[in-house]
């Protein structure tokens, strides 16, 4: 059965509750009335010829400009090998749609995911909880106007740019080198970024080597090599608390 036939069959049964068939770019879909969605789904599942026995997916789309959240039902029939898409609209401020969990068991978790991501409350759902995010999460992330809360349970959601930190360290080292250098022949203002040309830099620290200890620290993980190790005292407890390995 193609999409036209499916649509005409639904239209003949439910009349005005089923909208016009929209030839979308990928899947043809039809907009149906929200309060009729359960009946339509049950009809689509039970009616011979339609046999939509597989609820592939339930998703949602946020449309802030229209003040609408769409819930999308992807249906498939394993016997007939045809598919169809139903859509319902819900008010964005108080989105609420009847649950089709009684028609397809698979819709249970899918509707929970839509609730988690978009905040659509499914009426008649036996277990309307978040499914992916923690239970005490604030907000619904797939809404277009979602703002991050700035971390979770004390874990911040920012990370300093390691290159900025690296630049600061290099700058400090240059200053230290410039301060430790003997009174130079040339003026200090003309010191080159590489720390001098060898004659006016300290003999124990060649200019190229000044970058090596920076790269070996573990404060800039994104830029360091696989061999970067933390200093041993980071894990070792204080000496007086140590236990003997053999008891």
């Amino acid at each position, binding site marked *: 059965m193609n999409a036209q036939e499916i649509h005409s069959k639904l239209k003949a049964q439910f009349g005005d509750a089923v909208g016009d068939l929209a030839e979308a770019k990928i899947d043809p879909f039809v907009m149906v009335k929200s309060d009729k969605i359960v009946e339509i789904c049950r009809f689509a599942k039970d009616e011979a010829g339609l046999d939509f026995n597989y609820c592939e997916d339930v998703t949602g789309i946020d449309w802030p400009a229209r003040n609408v959240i769409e819930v999308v039902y992807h249906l498939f029939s394993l016997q007939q090998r045809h598919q169809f898409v139903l859509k319902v609209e819900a008010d964005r401020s108080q989105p609420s749609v009847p649950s089709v969990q009684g028609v397809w068991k698979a819709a249970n978790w899918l509707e929970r995911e839509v609730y988690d991501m978009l905040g659509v409350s499914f009426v008649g759902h036996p277990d309307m909880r978040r499914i*992916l*995010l*923690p239970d005490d999460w604030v907000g619904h*992330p797939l809404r277009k106007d*979602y703002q*991050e809360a700035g971390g*979770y*349970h004390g*874990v*911040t*959601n*920012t*990370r300093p740019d*390691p290159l900025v930190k690296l630049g600061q360290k290099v700058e400090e080292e240059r200053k230290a080198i410039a301060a430790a250098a003997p009174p130079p022949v040339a003026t200090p203002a003309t010191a080159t970024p590489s720390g001098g040309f060898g004659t006016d830099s300290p003999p124990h620290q060649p200019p190229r080597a000044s970058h090596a200890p920076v790269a070996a620290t*573990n404060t800039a*993980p*994104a830029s*360091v*090599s*696989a*061999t*970067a*190790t*933390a200093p*041993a005292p*980071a*894990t*070792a*407890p204080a*000496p*007086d608390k*140590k*236990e*003997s*390995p053999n*008891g």
Partner: protein
Amino acid sequence: MAITSIIQSGPGAGVLLTNTNRFDDLLNLARKNSIHYLLFGLACCGIELMQTGGPRADLDRFAAVFRASPRQADLMIVAGTLSYKMAERTKLLYDQMAEPKYVLAMGSCANCGGLFQSSYAVVKGVDKIIPVDVYVPGCPPRPEALTEGLMRIQDIIMSERWWREKRRPQSGAK
């Protein structure tokens, strides 16, 4: 403790291995060749971790085998993307491990959030919740890289001085 005092008071106590600095090496040699890592994979890096434990890269060469319980694990390999929801579980697992314990952050996600660091649900690096000893870059790191990370953990273990630290207060009490 009693055995130690008997040995030290007996004849030839001055030349026992326990009275030398090399005894730490002996202890560390035993520790570094029995690293048991926690059976713990978060995302696709976990697949590579399994590959590293498999017959080609073969972490068993280092006598590093996985333990399914944090109580018996020495090393936590954080393999994969850490979400906020999982972060609390990870912290709990780390707290359940017995000292001395080590953490290896495997892959970009565990290092800094990696590919998913602009996501609302991903922790920007596992070092935000637990201390990390070795960072292994890569997305995911090849088994060779993870093997080298394990060898860096072994280096840390070999650099520690447990026996001498323990003896210091003893000698002070005499």
